[in-house]
């Protein structure tokens, strides 16, 4: 009977402990893809907030906008952009996988294979993007026309 459970009398159930007490749950591909999906999603969300705001500077003045954009062109930011694009690609590909898994019995059954296909696609896309982008980042250009 539930009233006997001591836990119900506790003042403040702490969900943090709920999640992290004991060993880490050893889920398989499905669980880790979900973890990645969450992390990339949150990261992209916060970038999105910033990105909309910095783009809004375009309404202030060309100088203001260009000043902000200049920061995106520094090499450290350039590496960050690779990570960001990686997150976007991963989130996108895994999102498509989730849609398939939701809608298509074959995909539900072979979700594990699909996860690795997603990883493969992400790798291919990033292999295309990363060098192209890094060459741009590290080429000596002064940013004007």
């Amino acid at each position, binding site marked *: 009977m539930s009233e006997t459970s001591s836990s119900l009398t506790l003042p403040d159930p702490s969900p943090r402990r709920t999640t992290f007490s004991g*060993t880490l749950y050893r889920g398989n591909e499905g*669980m880790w*893809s979900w973890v990645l999906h969450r992390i990339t999603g949150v990261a992209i969300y916060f970038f999105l907030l910033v990105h909309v705001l910095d783009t809004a500077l375009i309404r202030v003045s060309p100088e203001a906008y260009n000043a902000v954009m200049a920061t995106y062109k520094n090499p450290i930011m350039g590496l960050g952009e690779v990570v960001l694009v990686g997150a976007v690609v991963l989130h996108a590909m895994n999102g498509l996988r989730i849609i398939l898994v939701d809608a298509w019995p074959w995909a539900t059954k072979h979700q594990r294979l699909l996860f690795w296909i997603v990883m493969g696609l992400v790798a291919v896309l990033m292999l295309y993007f990363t060098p192209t982008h890094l060459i741009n980042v590290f080429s000596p250009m002064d940013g004007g026309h």
Partner: protein
Amino acid sequence: MSQSEQKNEHSLGSEGASEAGDPSAQAEAAVDATTADAQAVSAGGTTPSPADSAAEGTARQVEPEPVEEPQSFPVTIIVRRYDPEVDEEPRWVDYDVQMFATERILDALHRIKWEQDPSLAFRRSCAHGVCGSDAMRINGKNRLACKALVKDFDTSKPIYVEAIKGLPLEKDLIVDMEPFFDSFREIQPFLQATGKPDKERHQTIAQRERFDDTTKCILCAACTTSCPVFWTDGQYFGPAAIVNAHRFIFDSRDEASQVRLDILNDQEGVWRCRTTFNCTDACPRGIQVTKAIAEVKQAMISGVKL
């Protein structure tokens, strides 16, 4: 008794077993040997009972032909113990037990309870995976202790055993199951059909097959407590409740599918499923849980297709 003596009895004991013509003689001899070894390992353990020596005595006979006998080996089991009357927080406790490869983790827990520490509390009943009592987290994954075989683990490392996650911990490996059954009860898990037929309601083989998978559920909670959404939000109905709803939604005899779909079309219903497939992997009955949930979602969008 000395180690060498023990070893001796060990091999002879098992081989002589067929002499007795006793069905369980083999297993018996094996268990006897194990007991002796386990006692040697756990200092301060119990003394061998007369029955042990008797069994070993009768078994000490001429052996017909040399047979390759399975060997037991030491396994370290680390159990996350918690006694609410004493402990502030759960603690990990190590136990060394002698195990055979074909034995189950449940056997290891029994050996701990019966030979080393009788205060260890866990639930179990049928011991072969049909009653659903002993769902627990073994090496970080939900399984039934009676279906987890020692040979499937790397025994060079300790095996970690702890209670399932997300339900209130009561003691050691026992959690409060009431919230879990509350969710089950909430989806109206019973056939709702009008009219009283004289005999059986008819159903084709194909119609029966449609929901076969989800009839296997034994309500062990391995799926629900493997779900990351459930861990953080106990209000989520959880896979088990949805599986049982599926069992009736897709039963051609049932007339209340829409009621159940409405119940599950909730903030805490099927839409919270994030398709992590932990539930499918955890199900000891091999139910395609995530697929069942997907089918319920599809039924909500485009109607029930029997």
